[in-house]
């Protein structure tokens, strides 16, 4: 047992750190800003692509980095420390592995480079109004007519679909005995006639998610990934990948640093809030939990590097990771006291809005409200507990 990094690892960390410091566009800021353009969101992605670092988890033959698990961990940690905007996950984390695992050569050739370069923005057409936690209940229908699928249906919670060029989409091609059968995995061009994207504004005032309506959308049959009716295997494979990395340890560390900074600036009876017993206790509790999660993730990574894939145990990373994120944002909102109340980004009240309250209080309530989603999406935390109960504890 050993948690020390090798000299090679330490050198690698230096390399990553200086690359980020030298190349990360200063004007971007971090993902917390709610008003990013598509261009902003892709700027760092494109720089990483030029460097060859956009998809560390992919096999080298498809454009990955061939890094060790430890190197990937270090890369993530340094990225979080600098608060970089990560490459959009829909292509790199979700679709890419599906394509190089299940796609045919033609699909590999046209999908993967577009993901890597950032040319193609992908969105995920999974959830439907009647199929949330129970994904297999999906109803969006695709009927093969000659060499085209005609797709009709209604997707919801489609993140950043407003920017998307393409959507990977679960559709029902056959209504079989078992609901998991008869589902297929299609790649759909968002410019195809019949697609309408309707924004959903969330309680933090942001526009991240959308509804996508599909009306007689014609999709070439060659855009089917894997076999028709066998898409459920792909769907589950993708969800498994979604879970990894969701712990967000490095980003939570940074968020705690910021929280501490805020609590140092906020006053209670003339002294720093950070020095009060209540507040320092709460931060300490958070840090202990986060340290435990960090080592739990490291243990998972170590097992992975020895060839054991991330099993259902990794649901713990999702549950604990999101609980910690929610507690950090809640405590940050608490820290700013009365200045949690101003709500500026929601309504345009002119240019001087940044002047309300101390700068560090801006947007903290919005971030708190937005973060409530984390225990709902990606398989709600209740679903994750069901997975552990069934797959790990055998209940």
């Amino acid at each position, binding site marked *: 047992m050993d948690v020390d990094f090798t000299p090679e690892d330490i050198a690698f960390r230096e390399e990553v750190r200086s690359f980020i410091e030298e190349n990360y566009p200063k004007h971007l800021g971090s993902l917390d800003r709610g008003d990013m353009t598509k261009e902003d969101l892709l700027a760092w992605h494109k720089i990483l692509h030029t460097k060859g670092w956009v998809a560390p988890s992919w096999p080298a033959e498809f454009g990955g980095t061939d890094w060790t698990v430890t190197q990937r961990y270090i890369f993530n940690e340094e990225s979080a420390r600098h608060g970089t905007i990560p490459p959009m996950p829909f292509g790199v984390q979700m679709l890419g592995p599906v394509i190089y695992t299940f796609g045919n050569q033609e699909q590999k050739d046209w999908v993967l480079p577009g993901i890597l370069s950032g040319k193609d923005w992908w969105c995920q057409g999974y959830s439907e109004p009647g199929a949330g936690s129970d994904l297999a209940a999906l109803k969006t229908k695709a009927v093969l007519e000659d060499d085209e699928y005609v797709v009709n249906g209604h997707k919801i919670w489609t993140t950043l679909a407003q920017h998307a060029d393409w959507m990977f989409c679960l559709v029902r091609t056959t209504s079989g005995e078992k609901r998991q059968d008869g589902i297929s995995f299609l790649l759909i061009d968002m410019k195809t006639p019949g697609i309408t994207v309707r924004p959903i504004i969330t*309680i933090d005032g942001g526009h991240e998610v959308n509804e996508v309506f599909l009306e007689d959308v014609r999709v070439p049959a060659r855009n089917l990934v894997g076999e028709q009716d066998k898409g459920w295997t792909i769907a589950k494979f993708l969800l498994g990948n979604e879970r990894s990395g969701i712990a967000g340890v490095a980003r939570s560390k940074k968020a705690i640093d910021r929280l501490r900074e805020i609590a140092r600036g906020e006053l209670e009876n003339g002294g720093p809030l950070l020095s009060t017993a209540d507040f320092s206790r709460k931060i300490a509790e958070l840090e202990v939990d986060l340290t435990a999660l960090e080592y739990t993730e490291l243990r998972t990574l170590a097992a992975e590097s020895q060839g054991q894939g991330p099993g259902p145990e990794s649901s713990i990373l999702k549950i604990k990771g999101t609980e910690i994120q929610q507690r950090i944002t809640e405590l940050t909102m608490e820290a700013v*006291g009365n*200045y*949690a109340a101003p709500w500026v980004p929601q309504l345009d009240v002119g240019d001087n809005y940044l002047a309300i*309250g101390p700068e560090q209080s801006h947007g903290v309530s919005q971030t708190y*409200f937005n973060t*409530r989603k984390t225990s709902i999406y990606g398989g709600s935390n209740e679903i994750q507990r069901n997975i552990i109960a069934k797959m790990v504890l055998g209940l």
Partner: protein
Amino acid sequence: MDFSCTEEQTLLRNMVQSFVSDNYDFDTRMKIVRSEDGMDRAIWQQFAELGLLAAPFSEEMGGLDGGPVETMVIMEELGRGLVVEPYLPTIVLCGGILNRHGSAAQKESHLPGIIAGENIWALAFNEPQGRFNLADIVTSARAEGDSYVLNGAKAVVLGGPWADKLIVSARISGNQRDRDGVGLFIVDKSADGVSTQDYPTVDGGRASEVTLENVTVSGDAMIGDASSGLDILEEAVDYGIAAICAEAIGQMKMLNDATVEYCRTRKQFGVPIGSFQVLQHRMVDMFMEYEQSVSMTYMVNMKLDEDAAARAKAAAGAKVQIGKSGRFVGQEAVQLHGGMGMTEELNVGHFFKRLTMIDTQFGNVDHHLKRFAAA
């Protein structure tokens, strides 16, 4: 021991309830929130006509002589409707201060305008550096002859944009955070030297940052005196706490009912999600938080007229309960509604946001736990 409402109180509840459901459905409310003004002046006039604005004031002033229970009933029903009009700052906070501590002249010149719905008031008591400590006051009131000259900044003044009158806490003497030497002053918002920066709040209201630059008010504008200012302010805030506790239980009830209903009808895996035991027990916990909050709301409203120490302990305890329960109920209502709970379109998220702000308003759980322990 009696927890029932009188017949009059029940009539009052029914009246407010049907007014809100007839005139203030969720769409209407969101239109008001998104409007330029952010409140509906016509609704406010109707409040006046229904006598809601007269409820707590003495009959000689044209009021209805209601007590804390009447305010509680009204606030609970306004809470159910997520009503944003400034009943709390105008009637409960400022009206209450004038009613209990105003001089005869102050009452006569100000209460009729409040009762008639002609004036809107706001209580400017927070300061940027003060967090939740009411005595942490930098704003100064310098005596000059018979007048006072006010200088300073007041933070997050709820209802500020709509108000024409403010009650401002300012330091006449002593050091920052001293209990003594605090005065409460009636200030015309239009007076020379008063400037505001207005903005919307998380929970659909409006607030202002208020700056006072050499604002001169006459000595008659002071309510009470420099030795009683903080006591009066603390009392007013405790009345405010009792009122938003009532608001909160109205809102928790709405969320609990909506959540149970949603879980009964929303199907996943071929069954209503309300059939899952984990969600059932979650809703039971929400129910228990609500019931405990109701208990504390009744408690504090019945203890508002006790001596200052007992009142403070009651208010602190109630605020702790409501702060915790409101957060829990709000978070779980969103969680159980899934993605739908996260949308602006559903009222659930708006109740959640208001309940979140209720914890912060007048001091959060941490603040009132310390106050409770010290009381």
